[in-house]
């Protein structure tokens, strides 16, 4: 049963991370990130006590709330980036490559770290998708989403090898700090468009 739930959490991580790449609306972005933290919670609690894993969920949702509130105060016009490929097909294709690459990596990583395949794949998939997000966008909000996704993936993997309370607290502080940085970026005055 637990294995099935792990696979289900992986599926949620997959859908939300691909969704984060495809959707340009910030509301969708924050919603998907919030759902993504549910899968992170589940994958982390396989190695950590539920109370500590729940801290990740709460921190993640707080980060989403911070970003959401900050976005409410900004210019609603969605910015476009001229320099990068915008097409959904391109993003889907690159997401597919990341999925395949992380699956191949996770087969080795799960044996090496002694983790279940869904946990290893879920972690590497989020790291990969986050890096892809960072690679194809220079918008501060997208960059913060990318960094939060990369960190989420890393935290799943790191939870398997480290259970220190101090590390959990500092990682939570870093996640919240990133969200606050995102809020700071969003609330900086918008440059006038030509």
């Amino acid at each position, binding site marked *: 049963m637990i294995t099935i739930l792990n696979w289900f959490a992986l599926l949620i991580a997959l859908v939300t991370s691909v969704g984060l790449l495809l959707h340009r609306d910030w509301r969708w972005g924050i919603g998907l990130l919030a759902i993504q933290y549910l899968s992170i919670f589940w994958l982390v609690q396989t190695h950590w006590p539920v109370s500590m894993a729940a801290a990740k969920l709460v921190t993640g949702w707080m980060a989403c709330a911070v970003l959401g509130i900050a976005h409410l105060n900004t210019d609603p016009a969605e910015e476009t980036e001229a320099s990068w490929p915008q097409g959904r097909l391109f993003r889907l294709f690159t997401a597919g490559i990341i999925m395949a690459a992380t699956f191949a990596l996770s087969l080795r990583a799960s044996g090496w770290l002694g983790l279940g395949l869904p946990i290893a794949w879920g972690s590497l998939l989020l790291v990969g998708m986050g890096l892809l997000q960072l690679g194809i966008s220079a918008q501060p909000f997208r960059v913060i989403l990318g960094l939060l996704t*990369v960190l989420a993936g890393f935290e799943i*993997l*790191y939870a398997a090898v480290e259970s220190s309370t101090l590390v959990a607290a500092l990682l939570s502080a870093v996640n919240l700090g990133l969200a606050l940085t995102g809020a700071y970026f969003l609330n900086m005055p918008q440059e006038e468009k030509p």
Partner: protein
Amino acid sequence: MSAPFLWIFLPLTLAGLLMLLRNQKVIALIACIFTLFLTLAAWLLPIDTAITIGNVSFKLSSSFEILGRHLVLGSADRSLLALIYGSAIVWFAVAPAVKTARRLTSLGLAITALLVAALAVEPFLYAALLIEMAVLLSIPLLSAPGQRPGKGLIRFLIFQTLAMPFILFSGWLLAGIEANPSDLGLVQQAAILIGLGFSFLLAVFPFYSWIPLLTEESSPYTVGFILWMFPTVTIFFGLGFLDHYTWLRDAPTLGSVLTTVGILMVVSGGLLAAFQQHLGRIMGYAVIMETGFSILTLSLGGTVGLNIFFMLFVPRTLSLVVWALALTILKEHSPTLILGDIKGLVRIWPFATSGLVLANLALAGMPLLAGFPPHQAIWEGLASKSLPTVIWVLTGNLGLFFSAVRVMLVFAAAPEGAHWESRETVAQRILLAIGFLALLLLGLFPQWVLPLWTKLPAIFTHLGQ
């Protein structure tokens, strides 16, 4: 009271309180007095030894427990604390002259305290998390008020954040190596992760693209502070790695890897500086070169390398302060800092332009200036190992020297009949004059700062022996 409370939590608290104040001069004064107190305390107060003053007796304990882990600042760390907080005073004292005291002193003090915490935390690998928190705190400091975050700032955030997972995960692998040192596969994986982590943290080639971007788009003074503080603490953190892990310290390829990386940074930084059109970008490349020189000193190995590494500390701080101050003064009044637009500025801003050129020459290793003695020691150390290496390094120095000459010629190209004047404020003139004097005196009498770094190698149990 414990040492971590005095040198970490107290500055953090004061930094929070300073944010509530508005008067730049008051903020700078409080921050300077407090930082001076911390420096003197580091210099004079023994740690883990009872002190009796009259009837009162107290002991500054070295350890502070937090969530099951410890922050430890021992007696050996005192000279490092004195040097870090002592240098911070210089940055904070100059800040009101360029109207950046409000943000720089409060956030700068918090960043300094967090980075000291990074050096104090045990297990020391957790430092990566504290450095990341300091990075996040530096974002408001680096972002120009009223402007959207630039590419440099975004890249700074990305690269520094990506360093953290690599360092943390390498820590887990290193623990495995300690248990099974013969596992070569594990050693290789750990080395790759550490290498990547430090490449991001130290902005090693090719991950340094954010530095010239940041020096171009943000206030040069605040960027100067960040580019002084982060590489300094990161290298200390890296030295902690070398000191802690014997297999890493004794790795046969370590010296050649450090030499290659150092040369790449010095040569690429120097040559790119020579062809830059923006004054801010030149400073950025000079900082890249300095990180390269620090890495090169470590490649020399032993106490010799360590001593030269510490020798770089004071001249670098001084040169960067003068350079950043001069650049900020020019940026406030010039529409751009592009070479074509700043011709003949020496007639209007004689102190700022001279300070900029002098600091540039000092970092290029010009004889009679503060940067020369440590650079000469590096050239000598490298020449004793490999002559081609030192030729490459000199090429980098020549590049930075060439950029200084170019800038000097542009500053001097004033239209005929232009009158001499000095638009700098009195405070700016005094500070820049002190800077010139210090750069010259340290070039002539480098032994004057010897007492500052003679005790520093003792921080490292193995490297310092």
